[in-house]
Structure formats: structure tokens, C-alpha cells
């Protein structure tokens, strides 16, 4: 069967219109030898066979139905209430496309509006958009927005080294070719305030930071004040679950608050799709990228929802658009919205408190094991870095193979000076029994490794 809808006559008419004699002509710029490469592929399989093969492959995954998870570092294993899948699996939502027509899209628009409203409440901001692809792209959009607010004259971006390393990589990818100076994240522990100058358009931090450490609101406010003194924007990346317990960044001077929204009712999904939440102060609303839904009244005075500020999107001012983003992660944002609505203020606070207390219990127990030591001494939320007595990779392999545990993130991957440190994450999903089991696994793994080392040294 042919999947090409054009008839031979259609094709001839199109070729004639552009002055080509055959479809082959369209590929004349591709070198001959690359046009029909031979692929070394296995023979085709029947549907039954391929399903069996895919099931086999799927079973090789270390998923959370079969493994205990102490890994976070940007993607979090929080409980996903059943109501979420029930709501997002409704075909009205599941198949909904861009809600350009308010007259047939009130349901979708209302869910986006409610999601935006709850993100505002959580962050202490005035306006939130309908979401970006993920936390990393949300940060990149924030940086570009700050550049535009500074009218592209201020070319310096101060980035904390304690922002998720992949987010910082995405910022560099998004801003390449713009001749920007990115300062602050080349070496850890730099005094960000001292890097702020008249050429700075924004200062971005993460709180709690990549290592789980919390900065005090007064320290954050001081940095915000230093940024505002030179009319730079203060951007805060935050785990939305942490905002159920700790002060909203809007309360310590943030102009833009964003982050990974996966933790809000979205499963880990093997790394995606996720959503980036994004909120800012009202005066910057027109510079914000992405879709925005507003509440209004129709010509009969009834409440209704519409996409608003659409001139910012590329379908009206395409050539002057400051962002490519004119879509959102609608289904993921819906899941986040249902999650927040289902849990409410108290429920979210409870999730955050449980994670906080369990993480502190785990940290205390891990630090008691000889050879393990907490790497930070400040307050933390649900993640903490630990010096390990053996290479993190070896430790993690052992935990996975022998104990069915997905261990902490190997910080040496992104921070050479933190070689030998693992970043553990504990959420409300980790029971006390699980944490105690992890402690036992760590003790035995270290003991086995040390005795092996001794034998090896003999």
C-alpha cells in the first residue's frame, strides 16, 4: 500500500510548477552515493513477533515497579494519584490539539487557565504560561526573555554553578551565536553578587539547588537586590514540590520562577515527556514566550477562556518573534494541574514534609555508616550529597545488581571536584523500611568492597 496521497498527475503538476522534470531532480544536491544507502536491517517481523520482542526489551528496563529508587537529580519519584490518569485519559483531553478556537475548546482552555493560576499561587508570581518542554528549556527561555527585556544591549548572564548542569548546557545551546557572556558557573562557589555589573541582564539560581541545598530567603533577597540595582532580572529555578513547604520565590525578589514540573503528577516516564513550568511578574508578561490562556466574559456576560496576548506568538509577528515556542506540553500540564487540584495546599505541603523528614532520616543514617559523610552542612530539602568510601559507579552497580536498588546520582559526572560523591534523593515514596534496607545495602557493599580491596592488596 502506498502512503503517498498524491496521484501521478498531482506529482507531474507540482513538478511542472517548480520546473523539475522528476522527483529525482529534487535530490540533486544530495551526493549520489548517499541517496539510496543500504541499511543492514533484519527481516521484517509480524505484529505478534514484534510485540513479543518489544516486551522482552521492555522487561530489561530497571523500572520502579521492580526496583527501589533513591535517584533524583531533576526527575522525581513522587506519588501519582489515580485520578490523574483518569482525567488525562479522557479523549477530549488526550487528543485535543491547539485550542485556537475558543468556541469549541473551553474545557481545554479552562484546564490550562487553572494550571497557570495554581503555578502562580505556588511561585508567588503574577502570570504563568501554559508550560514549556521541560525545566531546561524553561530556563533557556527565561534567559532569552531577560535579554529582550534588556533590549539586547546587556550581554552578560550570571548563572549559578549549582543549577542543574544540563539546564546550563541547554542555555548555552539556545544562546549560541548571540555573543553573550555567561559567568558564574565555570567554577563552583563563586560569589555571584560580585559578578553582577551594568552589562548583566539576569542572574539565575536554583533553590533548592542541584545538590538539594536550600538558600535562605534573606540571602536570595540580597542577590535579587544586587540584580535589581543594575536592572537585571532575578531568575529562580525551583522544584515545585519544595514550594509546598518553603517560601515562594516571589517573596524574595524573583522576577521569573521556573522549573521542571514533572514532579507534579507526572510519572518518571523514562525521562520524558515532561513539562517546564514558567511564571513571571505581570510587567514582563508581554515578553514571556509560549502560550497564555486568559479568563474573560463573552458577549452575553458569561465567563469564558481564550488564548491571550497572541501577538507575541509567531503566527502574527513571526519575523520578530523572540522565541520559537508557540506550543506547550498540554497533557503534562493537565496532569500537573489535576495533581495540584487533587492534593490542594495541605496535600502538597504534606508531600513536601514527608519527603523532607524522610530525607533527613536517611541522611542521618547514611552519615552514621563508617566511610560515608554528608558533603554539605547547610539545610536541605529532599536531596543530599554524600562522600562515599568507594567509587560511586561501583557502588551503584552493586546496589542495582545485588540489592535491586537504583542508587544516588554520581556527581563526578558533572562536577570533577565532587568525584566520589553520590546525590541521594528521598521522597514520600520511600518507606522507612526501604531506607533501612538501603542502609543495610550500603553497609554490606562497603564491607564487601573493603575486604576485596584487602585481598587484592595482599
Amino acid at each position, binding site marked *: 500500500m502506498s502512503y503517498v496521497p498524491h496521484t501521478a498527475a498531482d506529482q507531474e503538476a507540482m513538478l511542472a510548477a517548480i520546473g523539475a522534470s522528476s522527483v529525482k531532480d529534487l535530490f540533486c544536491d544530495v551526493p549520489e552515493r548517499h541517496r539510496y544507502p543500504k541499511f543492514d536491517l533484519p527481516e521484517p517481523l509480524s505484529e505478534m513477533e514484534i510485540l513479543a520482542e518489544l516486551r522482552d526489551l521492555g522487561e530489561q528496563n530497571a523500572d520502579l515497579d521492580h526496583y527501589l529508587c533513591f535517584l533524583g537529580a531533576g526527575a522525581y519519584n513522587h506519588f501519582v494519584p489515580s485520578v490523574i490518569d483518569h482525567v488525562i485519559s479522557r479523549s477530549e483531553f488526550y487528543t485535543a490539539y491547539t485550542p485556537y478556537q475558543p468556541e469549541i475548546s473551553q474545557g481545554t482552555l479552562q484546564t490550562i487557565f487553572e494550571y497557570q493560576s495554581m503555578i502562580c499561587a505556588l511561585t508567588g508570581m503574577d502570570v504563568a504560561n501554559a508550560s514549556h518542554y521541560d525545566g531546561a528549556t524553561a530556563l533557556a527561555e527565561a534567559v532569552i526573555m531577560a535579554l529582550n527585556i534588556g533590549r539586547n544591549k546587556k550581554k552578560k548572564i550570571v548563572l549559578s554553578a549549582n543549577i542543574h548542569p544540563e539546564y546550563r548546557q541547554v542555555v548555552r545551546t539556545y544562546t549560541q551565536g548571540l555573543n553573550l557572556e555567561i559567568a558564574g558557573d565555570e567554577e563552583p562557589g563563586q560569589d555571584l553578587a560580585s559578578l553582577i555589573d551594568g552589562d548583566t541582564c539576569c542572574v539565575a539560581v536554583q533553590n533548592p539547588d542541584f545538590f538539594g541545598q536550600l538558600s535562605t530567603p534573606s540571602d536570595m533577597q540580597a542577590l535579587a537586590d544586587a540584580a535589581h540595582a543594575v536592572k537585571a532580572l532575578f531568575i529562580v529555578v525551583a522544584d515545585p514540590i519544595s514550594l509546598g513547604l518553603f517560601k515562594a520565590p516571589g517573596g524574595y525578589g524573583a522576577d521569573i520562577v521556573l522549573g521542571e514540573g514533572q514532579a507534579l503528577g507526572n510519572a518518571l516516564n523514562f525521562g520524558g515527556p515532561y513539562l517546564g513550568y514558567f511564571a513571571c511578574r505581570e510587567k514582563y508578561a*508581554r515578553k514571556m514566550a509560549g502560550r497564555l490562556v486568559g479568563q474573560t466574559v463573552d458577549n452575553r456576560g458569561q465567563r469564558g477562556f481564550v488564548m491571550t496576548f497572541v*501577538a507575541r506568538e509567531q503566527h*502574527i509577528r513571526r519575523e*520578530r518573534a523572540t522565541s520559537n515556542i508557540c506550543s506547550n506540553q498540554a497533557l503534562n500540564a493537565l496532569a500537573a494541574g489535576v495533581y495540584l487540584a487533587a492534593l490542594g495546599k495541605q496535600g502538597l505541603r504534606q508531600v513536601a514534609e514527608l519527603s523532607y523528614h524522610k530525607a533527613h532520616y536517611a541522611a542521618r543514617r547514611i552519615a552514621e555508616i563508617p566511610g560515608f559523610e554528608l558533603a554539605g552542612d547547610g539545610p536541605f530539602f529532599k536531596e543530599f550529597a554524600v562522600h562515599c568510601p568507594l567509587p560511586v559507579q561501583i557502588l551503584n552497580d552493586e546496589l542495582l545488581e545485588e540489592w535491586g536498588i537504583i542508587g544516588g546520582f554520581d556527581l563526578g559526572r558533572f562536577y570533577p571536584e565532587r568525584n566520589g560523591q553520590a546525590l541521594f534523593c528521598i521522597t514520600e515514596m520511600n518507606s522507612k523500611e526501604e531506607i533501612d534496607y538501603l542502609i543495610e545495602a550500603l553497609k554490606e557493599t562497603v564491607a564487601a568492597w573493603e575486604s576485596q580491596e584487602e585481598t587484592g592488596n595482599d
Partner: protein
Amino acid sequence: MKIDPNCLYAESHEWIRVEGDEGVVGISDHAQSELSDIVYVELPESGDSFDKGEVYGTVESVKAAADVYLPVSGEILEINEILEDSPELVNSDPYTTGWFVRISIANPAELDDLMDAAAYEIHCQKEGGQ
């Protein structure tokens, strides 16, 4: 369509009212009526300089967004801050309270390239007839 006889006009429908070596700039009644209800005017900051014909701001209406061009080169001295909260003044009073920016005129000779009211009226008729 109203055309203020005390202004000079650019083909892109901006007006300038010359006051000594300064000028007040806005968009014409014809322009506002083409755009329909204006919901937002984005203006530059005082101290910014633009060349003749350069984009210095944006007008957003319920149906379109349009760039606005400075009719002569100059530096922005003052912007009409009232438009931030009351952009509808551009619709109701485009030549008075709906002004956009006050500039210092860098090169008075450039004024010669602009149209007077009579020429602008013909220009609008021609455009309307297209």
C-alpha cells in the same frame, strides 16, 4: 478620517508635529482605524536613538500587531506613559492624548521628505483604492 493640518506625515502613517528642534510623534487616524481597537503600545526608553524609518515600537490591536517607524532620525526625549494603561487613547485621540514619543530632531532636512496634510490625504485615498 481626520488629518491634523499641523502635522507632517510618513508613508507608513506616522505623524510628527514639529515644535522647534523637537517633534511629537504618533500614528494617524487612518492607521488607528485600520488597526481597530488598540490594546497595547510598546515604546522605547528615553535616551534611545533611532534612524529615520527605523522601528521604534509596536502597536498591538485586537486583530493585528504592527511596527511603528520613526519619521525622522532622533533621540527619544519622552514617552507617553499614559498609553501603558490607556492604549485606547490612540483610537479616540490619535493626534492629541494618543501621542507616542517626543524626540529631538537630529536632521531637520529629513522633514522635507514627509507629506503635508493635503498630500497625505491623497496618499491614503490611493492606498484605499488599491
